[in-house]
């Protein structure tokens, strides 16, 4: 009889244990969508597919709406209205557009112009798909149009004005990080306590995974040998954003030389001292802006800027050597060297 009671208690204990584990169990849910002219993946930790879907769809909606405001190629975007009105009149914009431009100017100032959102007139000269390299004369003639100091922001009136006609504001170097911040905010509004938003390579993680571990982000090898994603390093993140800029994203090789989209605002030519730069900070808008700036500045000045701004950075220089800020020591796992 005693034995029976023991067995019964043991059985009951196991049932209760399993029962307690299965109710309200948190799981990871993931969905992807083509938004902002790129591939967006939102991952959330939730207790049901329904709750996850609701939150993810809301995040997609927020990203989509923001993307429409700052779309460089759409005639109906606020950004296009600013560009069309360059040198003519100011344009009233939404708080999101104003804030993005304000932060872009902040990154420009802090980086001494290494990042410049008015790089548009230079970028449009290149076609990285058709391998079109503009002449030096064309590049030089557009340089006077590139200067972030000619952006006039009136926060009181919520307006933006580009001082010179034909100036072109291009927020491609900062907007995806800003969108990741907005999406995380949207997920939190829907009661999600943990998740990860990846807008192409601009990623923001918050909270912990169901196993109480931080999110792990792989950093792409800038010289991978196949189309498959090859990872050069891994980093654990929680309540942090990470962005990477690389010379392998939009590029072509001509006469043995690599021409890519990360142009030096002062010269209009591609920067050539880095292969890739990854930046980690609290906000996606900062990681997205500063990874460009550090890439342009190169390893030495770039690390100096990262330290000054309190950012963590991993820089792979033109020779493939990896440089990191002291803050990344112990957090970064280098997968392979090359």
């Amino acid at each position, binding site marked *: 009889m005693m*034995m*029976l009671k*023991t*067995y*019964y208690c*043991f*059985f009951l204990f*196991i*049932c209760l244990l399993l029962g307690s584990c299965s109710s309200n169990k948190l799981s990871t849910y993931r*969905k*992807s*969508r*083509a938004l902002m*002219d*790129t*591939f967006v*993946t939102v*991952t959330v930790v939730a207790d049901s597919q329904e709750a996850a879907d609701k939150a993810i769809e809301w995040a*997609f909606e927020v990203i989509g709406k923001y993307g429409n405001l700052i779309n460089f190629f759409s005639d109906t975007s606020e950004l296009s209205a600013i560009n069309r009105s360059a040198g003519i009149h100011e344009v009233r914009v939404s708080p999101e557009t104003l804030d993005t431009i304000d932060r872009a100017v902040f990154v420009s100032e802090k980086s001494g112009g290494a990042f410049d959102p008015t790089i548009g007139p230079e970028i449009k000269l290149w076609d990285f*798909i058709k391998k079109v390299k503009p002449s030096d004369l064309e590049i030089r003639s557009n340089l006077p149009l590139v200067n972030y100091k000619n952006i006039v922001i009136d926060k009181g009136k919520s307006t933006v004005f580009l001082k010179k006609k034909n100036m072109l504001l291009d927020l491609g170097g900062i907007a995806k990080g800003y969108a990741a911040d907005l999406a995380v905010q949207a997920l939190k509004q829907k009661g999600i306590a943990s998740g*990860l938003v*990846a807008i192409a*390579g*601009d*990623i923001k*993680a918050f909270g912990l*995974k169901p196993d109480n571990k931080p*999110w*792990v*982000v*792989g*950093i*792409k*090898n*800038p010289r991978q040998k*196949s*189309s*498959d*994603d090859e*990872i050069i390093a*891994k980093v654990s993140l929680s309540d942090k954003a*990470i*962005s*990477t800029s*690389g010379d392998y994203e939009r590029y072509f090789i001509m006469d043995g030389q690599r021409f890519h989209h990360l142009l030096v605002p002062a010269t209009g030519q591609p920067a050539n001292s880095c292969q*890739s730069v*990854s930046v980690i900070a609290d906000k996606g808008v900062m990681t997205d802006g500063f990874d460009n700036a550090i890439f342009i500045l190169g390893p030495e000045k770039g690390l100096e800027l990262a330290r000054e701004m309190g950012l963590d950075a991993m820089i792979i220089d033109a020779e493939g050597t990896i440089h990191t800020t002291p803050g990344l020591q112990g957090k970064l796992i280098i997968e392979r060297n090359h």
Partner: protein
Amino acid sequence: MKETIRNTTLADRLLFLFLVSLSVAGIFLARDALSQGSDVIIEVDGKPAYTLPLNVSRLLSVDGPYGPTVVEIEGGKVRVKETHCRNQICVREGWVSRGVIVCLPNKLVIMVGGGNKRQEQGIDAITG
């Protein structure tokens, strides 16, 4: 054998039942946790449209705003063979055995084995 069964108590039988249930549950749990094998998942406008095995050669035409896009699977790899959008970025991607091919104008996303590889590496997302 019959003698052994006859000698079992109710508790023994309950325990046996519990262990059998646990084993059956284990099969389902393991199926969820382990890799499902390599499939090609094609999404159109954010919605799953096709799931195809990666080990069966096939040509598939997927309709989009810019007309049909021809997806080819062969030798454990997938590629966009033909599409009618302007930039042809997805075609230039070439053959992919793990990862994602995106054709933005056609709102087409082709995912292959990427999730499994990431899981193996313990990676939740990739930057770069």
